[in-house]
């Protein structure tokens, strides 16, 4: 969690295409920055089977070349016969990909437009692939994302950091990124989508909702975990303080390489910003941390002592860790593995 920072983020096309903005240009969240023809589905026309000819003969009678756009009814194969011509017409439209063992392969495409999702300045353009944006804003890393992206105005629909979101609390959310503490019912996600929400930031989803959340099609970022624990107080307060701001959800699913989903709240660049700190922050005394495991899960505290050597936990395990002072003044030893730093 980092506030009022100057961040750089790549926005890349899934397939090579056209970049339509230039370095130095200011972009808005809805602005298209690059576009491409993205393959959607392909179709197979079993030509040699239909004409009872060998795969080699298919090539002999072929009337289209690779990369050609074909309309339904266009002639694909043509063979001269004693009495006129025999033709095979295309039953579909698409781009002719090639011949594969006597079968004609067609690829169908759709336009894909990549939007900026944030107020930012283009600092680099990578031909055919995408751009690098410089954003002034607040970044919050999540622990899970639904695999979608979204943009909207931040709208709090949680009054406390552990309250489950109720159906009757979902109104006036069209185009908004909704903030909830807990969602424990899949119908709530469906209802959010029906009401036109652009995305959801949630402290925790219960397991039954989590397993199906990606199939709903809504951009969702979980900030804390799975269960009913809700949202860490510090994250909750930060989001509440930014209600009404533009927010972007980059709700990528966590991958093998440790990339996590992130929430970026755009700020006015005129307000000034500090540069992004180095990528890795070894824990230091005085640092604010969030605890990841029960019975202290989602509690925020401050590191007051770092241990150089392995130390026994309350349960008797040995771990590298730190003493953390919690909000109620109590001090506990927490393994580093159970801490998330707040920068």
């Amino acid at each position, binding site marked *: 969690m980092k506030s009022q920072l100057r961040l750089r983020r790549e926005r890349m096309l899934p397939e090579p295409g056209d970049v339509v903005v230039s370095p130095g240009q200011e972009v808005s969240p809805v602005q298209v920055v690059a576009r491409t023809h993205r393959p959607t589905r392909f179709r*197979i026309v079993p030509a040699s089977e239909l004409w009872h000819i060998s795969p080699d003969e298919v090539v002999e009678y072929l009337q289209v070349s690779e990369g050609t756009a074909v309309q339904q009814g266009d002639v694909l194969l043509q063979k001269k016969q004693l009495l006129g011509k025999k033709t095979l017409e295309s039953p579909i439209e698409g781009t002719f990909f090639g011949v*594969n*063992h006597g079968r004609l392969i067609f690829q169908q495409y759709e336009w894909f437009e990549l939007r900026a999702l944030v107020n930012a300045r283009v600092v680099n353009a990578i031909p055919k692939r995408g751009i690098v944006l410089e954003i002034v804003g607040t970044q919050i890393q999540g622990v899970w994302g639904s695999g979608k992206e979204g943009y909207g105005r931040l709208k709090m629909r949680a009054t406390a950091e552990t309250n489950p979101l109720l159906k009757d609390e979902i109104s006036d959310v069209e185009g908004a990124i909704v903030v909830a503490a807990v969602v424990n019912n899949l119908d709530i996600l469906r209802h959010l989508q029906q009401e036109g929400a652009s995305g959801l930031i949630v402290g925790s989803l219960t397991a039954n909702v989590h397993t199906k959340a990606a199939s709903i099609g809504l951009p969702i970022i979980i900030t804390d975990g*799975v269960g*009913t624990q809700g949202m860490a107080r510090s994250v909750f307060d930060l989001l509440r303080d930014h209600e009404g701001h533009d927010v972007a959800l980059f709700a990528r699913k966590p991958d093998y390489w440790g990339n996590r989903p992130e929430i970026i709240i755009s700020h006015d660049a005129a307000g000034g910003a500090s540069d992004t700190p180095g*990528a890795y922050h070894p824990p230091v005394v005085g640092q604010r941390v969030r605890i990841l495991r029960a019975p202290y899960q989602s509690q925020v505290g401050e590191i007051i002592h770092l241990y150089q050597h392995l130390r026994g936990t309350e*349960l*008797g*395990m040995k771990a590298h860790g730190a003493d953390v002072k919690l909000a109620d003044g109590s001090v506990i030893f927490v393994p580093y593995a159970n801490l998330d730093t707040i920068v």
Partner: protein
Amino acid sequence: MTERETTPPTRPESYLIAECGNTYTTVLLFDVVDGCYRLIGRSTAPTTIITPWSNLAEGIQEAITRLADATGRRLISNKKLVTPARDDSSGVDHFIFIVSAAAPLNTILVGLSEDVSLTSARRALHTVYANEVDTFGLADSRNEEEQVAAIIAHKPDLIFLTGGTDGGADQRLANFARTVSLGVNMLMGAKQVSVLYAGNIKLREQIKQIMGEIVPLHVAANVRPNLQTEQLDDAAQMIGEVYEKLKIRELPGIHIIREWSQYAPLPTARAFASIVQYFAAMQPSGARVLGLEVGTESVVLVSATADQADLTIRSDLGMGRPISNLLKHSKASAIARWTAEQIDDETVRDYIYNKALHPQTMAMSESDLHLEQAIVRELIRTAVCDTPLDWQIADPSPAPFRMLLLRGLAFNTMPRLGQVVATVLDALQPTGIFGIALDELGVLPALGALSALEPMAAVQTLESKVLTDLGWVVVPVGRGQSGQKVLHVSIESEDQQTQYEGDVEFGTLEVFFLNKGRSKVTLKPERRFDIGLGPGKGTTIHVSSGRVGLVVDARGRPLQLPQDEIARRSLIRQWYFDMGG
């Protein structure tokens, strides 16, 4: 990148071995002390293949720096390894890199019969860190367009095509090959996919023609040349080569490490399998040794005799990100049955999905700890039950073994060693008499790698007690009533200072603490009970004390848990305390 001298070493050579796991990187220094190889020191640091580092060399450099600080031996200078060793005792002669942190090989299996070719293909695939992302077989109801779409969607690293017995004339495999060829061709430019063919030898040329010149095709011996024979070695070796090329060599920062070493990187599980086989070679003729690793990203099983090591890597199971896959195999209630607390299914599922999101975290409450250990039990059971041919069993018990070697974060984070033993007894439900050792220091893969280069170094290091000896287990098998006498045990310490005699009753789990040094243990089972030597046949064994002691598991096989919830919880609690809490 390496600080080198030109003078060749003339003394015994030293070895620095780095094992890069998913969570931690361990480095171990082996050198000669008083004429014998010893583990001089070890240190760990977080593995740094993931963001924000994206460079595995950083973690290794950090671990070496810590090791240098701890041993006072200069091993690294300006992030470069000091090699070979110098006369002032700085540096090291050899550097070996072992790794399990590379991403699994995403593979689509294509075969004809689920029970024959696909089963064998899966076994070959499980000899590397791999994920089976899809399966095409005769039972697949998808049409060709849908199967090609699946190839495009999965963007696999490897498509493993097999099926048919040698000499058969089944053209269905050729049809599958056309589908594969089309899918791979359509991914050209976006992803290069390797194809391995290990099916009917008669179709080889046709498969080569179908794949054409563009598709990278590897050909191996048919995994099922006939219905009665299975030959996996050739295919397994090729899959291993593909894994090394696509996954290990592509690790971020590996080029730095490769410059330090003349040896190819070795997958951790293979190194582990080597040392398990080494232990098997030390056992009486034909005796089996079982190796079990439960890590963050995989579960590894090795069943070895002196002649052969069967390796099974389950990258879809583990205590980290893959943990949620457990729910595909086990119900939440099946996991919760191993805890003494009343835990509802939703709590189990919440816990598992949370752990997948925070894979490196450790339990901080008793209830979490018990649930985590319950999960370990079901993970092991799932891995063992799913590998029937490797383990030559039809029931969820492995073939009898003489020794059990354990490693992995799941065991190393258990607060008490009795919990480690209890976990594997419940999960494996083994039989007979065997010893258990735990690799707390993480030395076994390193010794596996070392045994191939400098066998004496591995032998001498093992003699220096680098493993934690947990003790011995005796499991009598037979039907009985609760309270019925099963086994008479007499224990006499080597110095004859202490003696014990007593009976073990059916349904109990007894732990006998042994005096330091060796003890003579005489076991006399009742007529209807078998400790692996035949019904009623006893034996005398000479055993070392072990940190847990001698465990007699007379609970019966398979373990029966009471249906009544209160009785079940009471019994689990009793077993928990029997093993030391």
